[in-house]
């Protein structure tokens, strides 16, 4: 079905056309005949028509007309039209076309095939023939239209176009729009028409009314959101208070501990060992004890010589003082530590509170003590490895037996007299040894 079938019939259709009129009459007569059942004339008319159908159509239709023709014989010959028939048809068609063209020229005011009318004018002695130039009817207009073409959108029959939107606000109240009203319709420039990731509401309708008067939102919704907000705030507050109390309690505990230690220290300072101040006792091993015992011993000349040799071998220029110092290093330094530093070290290992993140030292106490101090054991090893086979140390080790750890044990210097004495001894002695 085409859409044109839905359109009303064209104006004047049926009225002027006698053919249509006749058809309608026939239809009417049929309807009447069916309705009334009487009226013999019309009945005869119908039966005549039925007769025509029977006689002219049904009588000529055979059963084989309803069977595809090639069913019986595939090789049925269907010759192409003969050249005679083709020529005949061509002539017929051409004559028809010529007639058509002639009629066309005759009937219409088509200027293409017509003789062009010419007017002769006399200018002086010359007679001038004035002819209007032939124009191609399909040639596009030579005048270019500029600007917008106004087309009134008014159908003559139906009257003006109906306006569907509400005119009450604009038409009736003829007042001009105030600047304030206009500003309400304005969308800030930063709100994009296309991209609105932050979800700015471009609400033109409610924007015209004042903010508080939005009635579309359900009361329950706002209540819920409010309640949620309050609950959230309260929960945050409670958590904050709890944390605060925890911190205070911890700090209190720490300060108490500190005070206790202070008190202990003071008591020891003034009551206990009298004038001796509090100092850190170094972790003591057996080597240390040894060194403590040999506290007063000075490095002997041989060792000094030895150390100097080592330094020379390494290519280091070490002063006498340093060498002496190394010998001296076993002595416990008389250092006074503040007890609070000690406390801090203790605290570092204690469970940390969340808020004092950078209060504890980077290194534990024992690390600090040894970080810039000579590691004697390491030094021993180095000496052992570096100072070849004719090493005093190795000799010393051999003599003393155990020299792995602890400070270097020194032997008595062998004087010339001793050597002489050894040399004077007869070979027998040696043998006996």
């Amino acid at each position: 079905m085409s859409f044109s079938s839905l359109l009303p019939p064209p104006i004047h259709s049926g009225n002027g056309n006698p053919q249509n009129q006749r058809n309608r009459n026939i239809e009417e007569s049929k309807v009447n005949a069916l309705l009334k059942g009487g009226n013999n004339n019309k009945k005869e008319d119908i039966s005549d028509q039925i007769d025509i159908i029977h006689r002219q159509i049904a009588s000529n239709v055979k059963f084989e007309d309803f069977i595809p023709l090639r069913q019986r014989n595939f090789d049925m010959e269907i010759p192409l039209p003969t050249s005679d028939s083709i020529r005949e048809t061509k002539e017929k068609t051409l004559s028809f076309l010529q007639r058509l063209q002639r009629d066309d020229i005759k009937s219409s005011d088509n200027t293409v095939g017509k003789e062009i009318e010419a007017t002769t004018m006399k200018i002086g002695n010359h007679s001038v023939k004035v002819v209007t130039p032939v124009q191609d009817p399909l040639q596009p207009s030579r005048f270019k239209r500029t600007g917008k073409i106004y087309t009134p959108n008014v159908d003559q029959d139906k009257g003006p176009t109906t306006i569907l939107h509400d005119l009450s606000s604009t038409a009736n109240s003829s007042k001009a729009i105030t600047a304030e009203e206009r500003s309400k319709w304005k969308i800030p420039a930063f709100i994009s028409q296309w991209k609105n990731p932050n979800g700015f509401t471009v609400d033109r309708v409610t924007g015209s009314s004042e903010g508080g008067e939005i009635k579309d939102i359900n009361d329950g919704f706002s209540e819920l959101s409010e309640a949620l907000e309050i609950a959230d705030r309260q929960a945050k507050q409670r958590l904050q208070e709890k944390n605060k109390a925890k911190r205070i309690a911890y700090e209190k505990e720490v300060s108490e501990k500190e005070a206790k230690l202070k008190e202990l220290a003071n008591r020891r300072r003034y009551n206990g060992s009298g004038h001796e101040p509090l100092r850190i006792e170094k972790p003591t091993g057996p080597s240390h004890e040894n060194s403590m015992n040999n506290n007063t011993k000075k490095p002997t000349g041989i060792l000094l010589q030895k150390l100097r040799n080592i330094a020379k071998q390494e290519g280091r220029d070490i002063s006498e003082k340093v060498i002496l110092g190394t010998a001296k290093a076993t002595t416990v330094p008389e250092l006074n530590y503040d007890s609070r530093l000690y406390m801090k070290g203790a605290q570092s290992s204690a469970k940390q509170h969340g808020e004092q993140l950078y209060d504890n030292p980077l290194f534990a106490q024992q690390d600090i003590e040894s970080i810039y101090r000579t590691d004697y054991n390491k030094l021993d090893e180095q000496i052992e490895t570096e100072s070849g086979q004719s090493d005093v140390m190795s000799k010393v080790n051999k003599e003393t037996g155990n020299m792995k750890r602890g400070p270097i044990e020194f032997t008595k210097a062998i004087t010339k007299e001793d050597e002489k004495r050894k040399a004077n001894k007869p070979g027998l002695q040696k043998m006996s040894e």
Partner: protein
Amino acid sequence: MDDYNTEPENVVLQQIDEVYRKTRWMNQFSSMATLPKHLQDELNNKNHIDTPTPVSEKLSQTNNTLSNIETSLSSSNDPIIEHSVMERRRQLLLQKPKWHAPWKLTKIINGHLGWVRCVAIDPVGNEWFVTGSNDTTIKVWDMSTGKLKITLAGHAMGVRGVAVSERHPYMFSASEDKLVKCWDLEKNTAIRDYYGHHSGVHTVSIHPTVDLIATAGRDSVVKLWDIRTKEAVTTLVGHKGPINKVECLPVDPQIISGSTDATVILWDLVAGKSMKVLTHHKRNVRSLSMHPKEFSFASACTDDIRSWRLPEGSLLTNFESESTGIINTLSINEDDVLFAGSDDGKMSFYDYKSGHLYQSMVTKPTRGSLSSERGILTSTFDKSGFTLITGETDKSIKIWKQSSTATPIEDPGLPWNPMSSSQRF
């Protein structure tokens, strides 16, 4: 009814009528003891209708009449048409359709940027062919090498139809931009435009003898143009939907058109009206094709291909086309091969005379094409009939050839198993 007796050949028809009437009577009223009152009254009034008789009597009567009919049929008609379906089927099975070699893809030509909507062969030398595409261009290709010869641009919208003239150095193209263009193939330029269609033009055909072209399109009229003067000679009005295909013939009916309104109309050009309207198709008739060697043509709608005898337009064959789908194009060979290209890329090859589907395949997708791009939009056989050219929705042109090595024993094709539906009218 008594009037039939005036003509002797109506005797048969009358007898058939009688048989029919009696069987109706038997079916409806034989089991009844008494007839309904209104019928009885009518019977009393009109005595020429037979009063109901007992069943046994009636049967014998019908038998008699049937035998009468048979004798009369055998005596009166020269070609005996069996009235039983089974008998007709048996006769069909007795005949063998002609064997054709299967078709194979030989070449894929790419070059168009849009659907290839139409294709036409050089009718004189068979050396080149033309394709029109949705990319608004017309391209001329070399037949043997498949190389592009020239691209003709000039249309503003897709080209829907091309036709190359046998008698002029002209080619005509129909486009959706409402224009029909005439191209000079010697200068390779458009030399004429035919204005007048109200909407897109879908098809163009050149009259074989007179200097006329017929075009038709979405405005559902066939327009005839004088080639030289560019004037619309006549407009043939009658279709109720867009016209898909127009063909011109040298004798009446000089124009045949197939339309979206499911009809094929044979036009009387001189009278300016339809000679015959073929209403057998149920759907949009998308394609028509003339047979090059005999005076008949084929038309196709969805799942239905039929061939018609000309000039009167009587049904020749009903092809085995039940599951072919939407058929976009038909082409007929001199060798009696009918090709039907479907919208889903299905290719069906039929024996034209028997309507036997002997090869069915799916077109080969070109590399990079989508699965939805599997439609065959247009097709044509070349002048020799050994080559088939198809234009497809994957923007390619494909060239198919019949395999030369195939034999009837090795490649028998699909089996010949005619269905009763092939006998439908």
